[in-house]
C-alpha cells in the first residue's frame, strides 16, 4: 500500500469508528428508557448496541494501526500509549489516545462483567460519557480535515443523535407509570 492509501484508511476508519461510537452511545442512553426507539424489540437494541460497539473497536484498531505503519504519519507507538506526549498537535492527538484507553477499559470490564459484578462494571461503563466527547473532539481537532465542511457536518449529526437520545431518555412519558418507585423507606443503620 502506498502511504496515500494508508492515509485514507487511517482517516476513514477513524471517522467510521466515531460514527459507530455515536450509535453505541445513543443506543446506550436510549435503552434505559421505558420505551425503545422506533419500538424496536428490546433485545434488538441491546444486540445493536453491543455489535456496533465491537465494530467500532475493530475500526478503531484499523485507525491506529494504519497510522502507526504510515511512515508519513507523525505518530509513534509511544504516542499511542501515552496521551499528550506527541510532538504533533500533542493535545488533539492525545485526546485520541485517551479515548482509545477509555474504550479499552470499557471493553475489558464488559468482557469480565460477570466476574466483576454489576456495580464495578457500571462504574467503568459510565466512562463512555467521557470517551465519546473526547473522541469527537479528537476528530475535529486533529488531522488535516478540520477545515473541511463534511467533518463538521458529521460531528454535528453525531451531537444531534446523542442529544436526541438524551431527550428520549428523559421525557417522562416514556417511563410507564407504576414502575419501580425510588423510595427506600429505610433508615440506615449507623
Amino acid at each position, binding site marked *: 500500500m502506498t502511504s496515500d492509501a494508508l492515509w485514507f484508511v487511517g482517516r476513514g476508519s477513524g471517522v467510521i469508528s466515531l460514527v459507530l461510537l455515536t450509535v453505541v452511545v445513543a443506543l446506550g442512553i436510549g435503552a434505559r428508557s421505558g420505551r425503545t426507539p422506533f419500538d424496536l424489540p428490546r433485545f434488538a437494541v441491546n444486540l445493536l448496541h453491543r455489535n456496533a460497539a465491537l465494530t467500532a473497536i475493530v475500526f478503531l484498531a484499523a485507525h491506529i494501526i494504519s497510522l502507526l505503519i504510515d511512515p508519513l504519519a507523525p505518530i509513534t507507538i509511544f504516542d499511542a500509549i501515552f496521551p499528550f506526549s506527541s510532538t504533533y498537535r500533542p493535545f488533539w492527538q492525545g485526546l485520541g489516545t485517551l479515548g482509545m484507553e477509555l474504550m479499552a477499559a470499557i471493553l475489558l470490564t464488559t468482557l469480565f462483567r460477570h466476574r466483576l459484578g454489576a456495580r464495578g462494571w457500571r462504574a467503568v461503563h459510565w466512562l463512555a460519557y467521557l470517551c465519546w466527547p473526547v473522541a469527537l473532539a479528537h476528530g475535529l481537532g486533529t488531522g488535516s480535515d478540520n477545515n473541511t465542511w463534511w467533518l463538521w457536518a458529521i460531528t454535528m449529526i453525531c451531537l444531534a443523535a446523542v442529544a436526541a437520545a438524551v431527550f428520549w431518555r428523559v421525557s417522562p412519558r416514556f417511563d410507564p407509570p407504576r414502575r419501580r418507585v425510588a423510595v427506600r*423507606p*429505610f*433508615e440506615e*443503620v*449507623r
Partner: protein
Amino acid sequence: MTTVAEPRLLGEPVEAYVPKLDPKQVIDLARQAGLTGRGGAGFPVGRKLAAVAATGRPAMVIANGAEGEPGSEKDRYLLTHQPHLVLDGLQLVARACHASALFLYAPPAALEPVRRALWDRRREAVSVRLAPAPSTFVAGEASAAAAAVVGGGAIPADKMVRLAKREMPTLVQNVETLAHLALVARHGAEWFRTRGTQDEPGTFLATVGGAVVNPQVVEAGYGVPLGELLAAAGGPSGPLSAVLVGGYHGGWVPADPELPVSRAGLDSYGATPGAGVVTALPASSCGLRETARIVEYLAGQVSGQCGPCLNGLPRMASALSDLAHHRIWLGMTSEVDRLRGLVTGRGACHHPDATARLIGSAMRMFHEDVTAHLKGECVAR
C-alpha cells in the same frame, strides 16, 4: 407435658456459664435436643451449625433480636430479662463454627441490658459487637441482619448472589434460639425434650396480645392448647372471632381453646407458631378490616428492591381494603387470588409470600364475612 407451667427462659435470671464443649459436642447437643430456630422459620439449629462448620472457614455469627414484627415483644423481653443466657448461647455457637466475629443485633433500647451483661463478663476474652437494628419489618430478615451489622442498610439480599460472592460464612440465629441452646448445654438434650411434643420439642416464648386481659410474654411447650396460652395472659377479654398466630407473617386460626399451638397443629390452617406472636381478635372487630390494615402496613414495609413485591403488595392492599370497606367491584376476590399468585416466590425475601399467605388464611377464615361484605353487610358485632 405441654403446658404453660414452670418457665425455663423466663425463670430466675442466671449468671454467665459456658460449659467447656468442643464444636462437635455443641452441634450434637443441638441435634439431639431437636432445637429449631425461634425467629419464625423454624429451621433445625444442628443442621445450620453443621453446614457453617463444614465450610472450615471462620464465620460471622449474629444473634438476631431485631424483631421487626410490631406485635412481638419476646426478644426484647428476653434480652432484658436473661441477657446472659443469650450471650452464653452465642458463645457456644461461636465455638461450634469457629467464629471470628460475633454480633448482637437488636433495637437500641434492647442493647442496653446486653451492654451491662457484657460488662459483667469482661474477664472473658470474648468480644461481642453490638449493632443497633432499625425498627422496620424486614430488618430482622437474616440477610438484612447480615448487611446491617457490617454497616449497610438493613435490607434483604438475593440469597444465591450472596452465596456466590464467597464472603465470610454467616450464621444468623434468633436470640431466643441461643438462650435455649445455652439451657441445653446446662441441662442436656433429654431435659430439653421433656417439654413440647415428640416432633417439636422444647418451649417457646409467645407474645400474647390483642383481646386478652393481660397482654404479656408467656413461655409454653409446643403443642400447648391455644386456650391455655390465652389464659396465661389473663384470658380473653370478651368473645373472640379468631386468633392471629405467627404475627403479620402468620395466619388466622379459629379461637378454639383446644387447638394445639405447634407446626403440626396449625398446619391445616396454613399457619405456624412462627416467632410466637398470638393476637386475639374480638368478635366486635371485623377480621377483614383487621387484615386489610395489616396488609396495608406490610405493603408499606416493602424494602423497595424487587418489582413484583414493590408493585404487587400495594395492589393487594388496596383490593383488600376495598373489600373491607365495602367498595365492591366485579371480580375483586379473584383479583386478590391472582395477585397472591403473582407475588409468591418472586421476591428476594419471603415478605411477599408471607403476605400472600396471610391474605389466603383471612379469605378462608373469614369467608362468611367476605360473602357478607360483597352484599354490603358485615358480620362483626
